[in-house]
């Protein structure tokens, strides 16, 4: 077994609730807005 595989096998797995949340449209729309704000803030900080 490669080094990477050992680490992978002991890494955390998402819970069923987390997996459902990734495809929950209303929740993801909120996260999408948040991601937009994050990216706009990041772009604004980087422009001089």
């Amino acid at each position, binding site marked *: 077994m490669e080094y990477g595989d050992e680490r992978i*096998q002991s890494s*955390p797995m998402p819970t069923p609730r987390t997996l459902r949340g990734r*495809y929950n449209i209303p929740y993801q729309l909120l*996260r999408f807005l948040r991601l937009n704000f994050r*990216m706009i803030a*990041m772009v604004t900080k980087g422009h*001089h």
Partner: protein
Amino acid sequence: MWEHAVARAVVLGAGVSGHTAALYLRKYLGREHEVVVVTPNSKWNWIPSNIWVGVGEMTKKDVTFPLAPIYKRKHIDYRQARAVAIRPEGNESSPKPTVEIVYTAPDRSGMVEHLEYDYLINATGPKLNFGATPGLGPDAGNSVSVCTADHAEHASAELAKAIEKLKAGQKQTFLIGTGHGTCTCQGAAFEYTFNVEHELRQHGVRDRAEVIYITNEYELGDFGVAGLHFEQQGFVSSSQTFTESLFHERGVRAILRAHVERVEPGKVHYETLDGQKSSIAFDFAMLLPPFTGVGFQAFDRAGNDITSEVFAPNGFMKVDADYTKKPFEEWRASDWPRTYQNPTYRNVFAAGIAFAPPHQISKPRSSPNGTVITPAPPRTGMPSGVIGRTVALTIRDMIKKGATEPTHHASLTEEGAACIASAGKSLTKGSAAAMTMFPIVPDYEKYPKHGRNVKDTYGEIGLNAHWMKHVLHYVFIYKAKALPGWWMLPE
């Protein structure tokens, strides 16, 4: 009052950085000034979406468009040619600087021209150095690539063949990653890995396929930027944990700290950081090449070769960075360039991938055999576009206001970047991992603990990131087509 003369700005390359620079130069300079773009390609390519082409979710036409109509509409002089040499002091008969170009356009193929310039932006991007690893790449025929739209279409066709074999009941091994110990763009390899894995699930053949990620990263989640730390549910978590968890969830194996030595039909030979040499069999391999500069030369007025003064040994152009050789512990954020001006020739700039970084971002490491196994620093689309705009604004001020020093700056130590690795194309069934980082190059003086602002650095998996990838695809192609209001869209 400053009386500006008619000037010619020549941009070499029409990728994200060069194309952005050319559009801004044209926007800000009056028609009395010339903006010339020299690029061997006839089409612009939104490279991040090549990943989708590589799994058959998009076609080459979806990610490219012809440059000539855009440049005609914007009154930019477009030469389909490649630069082979610059003479920044002119030649014995004239002190006017020139760039030597060789046409690649079918109607003028092979014609040579010495193009005079007042300002030069080298935005030639990388040479895809498949030759560094024997047997690597689509030309050698043993592995595929997604670096260009053509490569990605070829990869898609090969992937479809492998999926057909799986459907016929055969087992297949998919090996995806970096094809050399000094590669960059681990994010692209990571994204392609999970796109392939997603396609295998969609086709109902995942159980017969082994998906293996092979990388020169020291640990998963390094991405050539020494990994990331971000705040998550009250903890500061690492991109290593984040990435390993995704590999665990999707059943993808990983070979880390690997330098691919050679690729044979169906077999990769590699060395790991501990000096061990191994090989692995595959049925489908997408392995990225390392990058170098495109390799054009520079000559002084007397015709002496000054390439080594203008360019770093890796072929990228020297700019206002600190290239002093020093140990990792002494690396500073201030080593990184801010203006992208060549220190010798002040009217020459290098933007995007074409500038020589002062050093890696990830800690440099070598095997006991002396093999360097360290990611080169990535320079993704967002900073490349910002650098192109920054250099264009400086040149505008030099031409129109007589500025003698660069007036704008954009350091990778003060800029953020986003990496969105999206799998599938369906708006409700696709998935993606979004990561943002600020700044790109860690600044341990400003952020002593992790080198970055953990609040602005972030990682999340979900449909929202997948939607963002779609938005970026359409927004950046809109901007690159210079459609109304293009300049209001950020780089």
